[in-house]
């Protein structure tokens, strides 16, 4: 009993630690100034943490890709002055110095202003999306009533920056890639939004903290009431994840940057730090979408089991976010790239109908929330059937006439 109490008190102290620390620093300031400094401290911390995460995510990606392809990955960069290699952990900083000192080449025929604005706008919009995600019980920077809408509005604006980059470069490959990117982003915006709607519907709110609160508690004493553990939530999470892969231009949906077809796509004419900004924006976008997925489907900052609640909420959020990011990297190493027609067909003929049906499943789930006893089995069975039957039927139709592949000119 005593130990439990100790756990509970240390838990709550750790839980509010970031807020307490901030108040220690800013507590003595007068009111309007205090609000300003509090916001600045919040933004600064977020940028520092996500920036470091970005730096080490690039290293982790290169290392893990290396291991999967049976090579060591970057391991030579020493820590300055002490000449200790330490698995090459200083690699991201060496990369940063390289990106800053590289020559910034702007093509002669390029639209100089737009060419400069594109990476800036892209990064700005990606950072904006990071603001609304609840990183912990007390760690929400921007509390909007319509936070989900804000997130996707800022995300949609990044498409514009990609187009600006492609068009302003005055390069045929860049322009083609920009058009491809637009087609891809528009196609996958729809299933992304549609897969989010059930989560909003069940929580009855567009505010992200409320959606996380709605996933608190445990059914049968051990199963967390996260959305992903319901039939519609599972299907929704898969659809969301695939669309998120496409939205962040990650492999296997990295068609706009397909090297074998389009050089580096809309990044062809970018070098030096502008290229680094694009890279940064891609990883920030990936983090934001993963954070959104965690918040909407994986219970946000909720602990997975009741006796683990003494661990602070932001740690749980971090663990979930990191594991989702590792899946992103794993997928990049595993799947080959899609073709353009496969990409659009997959979105419109498979993901969009499934997401629409999933909306119906979620409606059924929320209407039958009162069912108990043997009726619960009926509820699960009907919901599972609503998820699985359309999936199987649509999957068969999609691959009809395509698979198994026959080779006419080779054996």
């Amino acid at each position, binding site marked *: 009993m005593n130990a439990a109490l100790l756990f509970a008190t240390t838990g709550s102290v750790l839980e509010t630690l970031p807020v307490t620390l901030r108040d220690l620093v800013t507590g003595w300031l007068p009111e309007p100034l205090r609000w300003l400094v509090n916001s600045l401290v919040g933004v600064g911390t977020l940028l520092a943490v996500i920036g470091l995460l970005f730096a080490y995510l690039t290293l982790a990606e290169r290392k893990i890709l290396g291991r999967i392809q049976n090579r060591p990955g970057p391991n030579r960069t020493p820590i300055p002055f002490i000449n200790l290699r330490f698995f090459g952990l200083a690699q991201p900083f060496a990369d940063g110095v390289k990106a800053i000192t590289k020559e910034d080449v702007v093509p002669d025929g390029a639209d100089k202003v737009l060419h400069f604005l594109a990476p800036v706008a892209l990064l700005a919009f990606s950072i904006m999306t990071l603001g609304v995600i609840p990183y912990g019980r007390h760690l929400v920077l921007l509390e909007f*009533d319509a936070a989900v809408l804000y997130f996707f509005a800022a995300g949609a*604006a990044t498409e514009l920056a990609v187009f600006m980059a492609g*068009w302003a470069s005055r390069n045929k490959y860049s322009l083609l890639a920009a058009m491809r990117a637009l087609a891809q982003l528009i196609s996958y915006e729809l299933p992304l939004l549609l897969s989010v709607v059930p989560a909003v519907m069940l929580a009855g709110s567009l505010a992200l903290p409320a959606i996380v609160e709605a996933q608190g508690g445990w059914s049968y004493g051990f199963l967390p009431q996260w959305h992903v553990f319901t039939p519609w939530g599972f299907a929704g999470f898969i659809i969301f994840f695939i669309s998120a892969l496409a939205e962040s231009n990650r492999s296997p949906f990295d068609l706009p940057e397909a090297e074998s077809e389009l050089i580096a796509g809309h990044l062809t004419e970018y070098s030096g730090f502008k290229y680094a900004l694009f890279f940064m924006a891609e990883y920030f976008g990936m983090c934001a979408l993963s954070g959104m997925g965690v918040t909407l489907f994986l219970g946000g900052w909720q602990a997975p089991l009741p006796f683990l609640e003494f661990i602070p909420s932001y740690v749980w959020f971090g663990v979930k976010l990191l594991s989702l990011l590792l899946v992103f990297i794993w997928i990049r190493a595993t799947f080959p790239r899609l073709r353009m027609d496969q990409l659009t067909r997959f979105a419109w003929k498979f993901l969009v109908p499934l997401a629409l049906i999933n909306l119906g499943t979620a409606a059924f789930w929320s209407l039958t929330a009162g069912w108990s006893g043997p009726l619960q089995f009926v509820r699960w069975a009907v919901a599972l059937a609503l998820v699985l039957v359309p999936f199987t039927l649509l999957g068969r139709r999609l691959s009809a006439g395509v698979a198994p592949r026959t080779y006419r000119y080779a054996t």
Partner: protein
Amino acid sequence: MIPLLLIAGLTLATAAVALALRNLIHSALLLIASWAGIAAFYLWAGAEFVAFAQVLVYVGAVSMVVLFAVLLTRRSRDDISVAIDSPARGIAALLTGGAVLGVLFGAVISSPLGAPAAGARPSLSVKELGLQLMGPHAAALLIVGVLLTVALLGAVVIAAGDRTDAAERKPEGNP
């Protein structure tokens, strides 16, 4: 009041420059900036939901349609004539423009404009907005939905018509 003036100035300025520029892509991007300015105005007025919806729909989606249309129209910059085609067209344009202006002006004049009491801004949650849309304004929502569906079907029919033409023509051309 100063933020409002700034937002209004930016919105109008970007719209005006978009009209004056001869580079279509620049005009389109400025038009999108103008739409973003309108979203900023909604935010200033405290209508978060409408502001984010404006960004999502106009800056995110409609802008793409505009850019695609601009890029797919095959006209070089020199082809675009600035002069009026014919007097009849000019008069028609003036009439429509004048009519729209009149309607807008009438609406602005007839709407009660008074400075709202400071701090007494009505805060409307998204849920209430949804209930309003689904209750008293359901008919309008349905009509808009039907209209958009018809437009979408029309676009599909037009696009599909081209493809059958090409498919019919192909066998003749290729021996």
